[in-house]
């Protein structure tokens, strides 16, 4: 039986083993695991022939990487200035309350992660909330419960 290649190896094959490829490799690997497990960081360090601390440094410096496992669904609130002046803080507040977690955290049942982003560049629709890649525009705190509730319902958790 052919052994499945690890996401790390696949990513290195795709981008190359040069240090300049580290960030794209981390992105690719994170896409697979939905976070960066220690084992993967060790593998990447040895494949790129750089020290683990260099990989760890980059993985913890940039906000798009996570060393903690993420939930099945991601709720992202845009906190850009245009959204801010249209009450995105109220939207985030309500999302926190509905999910019972803080921004950057994941629910205990591993179903939801709540994230914030600095700007999605779709300011005409602000405030924006993205659920699993789907954009919801002109969100009000009152709408948050409905949007998240729909996903909860699909998961049979309401």
């Amino acid at each position: 039986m052919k052994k499945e290649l690890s996401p790390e190896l696949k990513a290195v094959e795709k981008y190359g083993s040069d240090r300049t490829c580290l960030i794209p490799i981390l992105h690719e690997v994170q896409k697979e695991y939905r976070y960066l497990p220690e084992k993967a960081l060790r593998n990447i360090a040895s494949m790129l022939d750089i020290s683990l601390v260099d990989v760890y440094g980059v993985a913890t410096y940039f906000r798009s990487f996570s060393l903690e496992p993420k939930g099945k669904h991601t709720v992202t609130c845009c906190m850009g200035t245009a959204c801010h002046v249209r009450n995105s803080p109220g939207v985030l507040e309500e999302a926190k309350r509905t999910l019972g977690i803080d921004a950057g955290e994941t629910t205990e049942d591993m179903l939801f992660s709540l994230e914030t982003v600095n700007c999605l560049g779709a300011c005409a629709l602000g405030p924006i909330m993205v659920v699993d890649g789907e954009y919801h525009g002109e969100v009000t705190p009152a709408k948050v419960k409905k949007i998240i509730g729909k996903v909860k319902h699909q998961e049979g958790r309401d």
Partner: protein
Amino acid sequence: MAKIKSPAMLEEYRNEILRKRERYTRVISLCGGPGCHAQHCNEIYEAVKKAVEKNGSSESVMVRKTGCHGFCEMGPIAVIQPEGIFYCKISLEDVPEIVERTLEKGEAIERLLYSDPESEKAIIKESKVPFYAKQKRLLMSMNEHIDPGNIEDYLAQGGYRALVKALFEMEPLEIIDEVDKAGLRGRGGAGFPAASKWRACRKAIARDGIKYVLCNADEGDPGAYMDRSLLEGNPHLVLEGMLIGAYGIGATEGYIYVRHEYPLTVENLLIALDQAREVGLLGKNILGSGFDFDIKVSIGGGAFVCGESTALMASIEGRIGEPRVKHIHTAERGLFNRPTNLNNVETWANVPLIINQGAVKYRKIGTKTSTGTKIFSLVGSINNTGLVEVPMGMTLREIIFDIGGGVPKGRKFKAVQTGGPSGGCIPESLLDTPVDFDALYDVGSMMGSGGMIVMDETTCMVDIARYFVDFLCDESCGKCVPCREGLKQMLFILEDITQGRGSLDQLELLKELAEVMRDTSLCGLGQTAANPVLSTLHYFEEEYIEHIKKKKCRAGVCKPLISFSINAKKCTGCMACRKACPVGAIKGKKKEAHVIQPEKCEKCGICFEACKYGAVVRK
């Protein structure tokens, strides 16, 4: 396709494309920019394509999905040529009629046209819509004619002619002189003359012969998306600019650094690079000129500071994206310690224009010290949200009121924020300030990359200062003390004020901190971080004092300073607020006046939104 080996072959190829297109009687361009994308324009595009095929008119009608057209407020939008018909807020249901009436017969469908808010008349042509009519769209206007995934569209618009001129009719130094004469200043924020940077990099000695040109597409300012729309919608324009710059400087390799939050930009860019390579516009011996150049794409990891040149270069190298002290300029030792020139997306996009029409003509647009046009993302509390390209020197008032249509919901304009987290808030009394690098600096703000966020009376100016400081606190890389610690202390003070614990002497402390940070921070992030605080303190001091002395937030934003109650006279007892309250703080029976229990209320404002009778009072 075979590689193009000479300018003559390129012209031949271009003519062939144009000939091929003569059969089209109509072209529909559907905007696929970020705003329209979020409004499901993809489905509409697929539906139009299918309907045209089904109709058997794919031979005469061209269906094209393009980058951003700019008028995001009205999305999804489409333009139909040759009539120039402009449709807005289209939906899937409109598709059959658009195909049947407009694409087949050239008729305009009234309900899809833009209606002028003043005269209430429907406007057929895009060029007559006030939002567009008052702009000068030298760069953005090309977007709607271009499918970013098809190099032929760019060539059909005369693309890469400037490159031919640069490679075959000009000496490298002449190119730099031309850009110098044009007065092109960096569009990324600081407005440094592009030609000065180019000259320094050209002069620098490369030990192994390698020099780099980089494109900064790490558009991190919240509320700004001009660079995204240019690069995503018209990638070849930026590539052409970089090619010309590289030839002038003597660089052979390029990088485009894109933030990872823009996956579609990366996708379009990679396609464009492949297509340019395939036809021989990138690679070895470009168009037979002997000039070699290629470009790689580097993706960011979500750090605002990576917009700073040295941090960006560290990030491309696969290291932590921290800035360094610039005793030695990056023009001499930048990426991989080699001479490097970095410009922003919009700066590069201006280069083909300058080469094509010449510096003299280019200079005719704009002001004496700020030439050309500038693209702004006009967002926030504004009727016509979108991307606007205007000649430098236009006043803020013209942009916000004539093009942007003013503030919605009958609210009153309060301030406009330009320059992102390094910029400042400009009050109404200064709305006649022209957009010009120096004029904006003089009023305590800056041009920045082009974010223009309009604020009305519901925005608290102290809270906005706190918002930017909080943002920067999060994004400070922590390498130097003044920025890392200074921002933290500023945030503590601003939180004190917005939460009603502030004192007047803290305002002096803020100013003092700001001065130290400006003078001693390592990079631009820390040096300019205090601008939002200083500008709000300067123009809106009374709001700070009100928060401190009267414990009042006039905008109703700072939660500890506001309270919600129900006006019993207006309350009908409809229960809407009670049902909506997420914390069960509202008591009351059906058809009886309700009451908010202050000890339970978390001041989220949901009841305020839910009440249809205006009975919930925010004080």
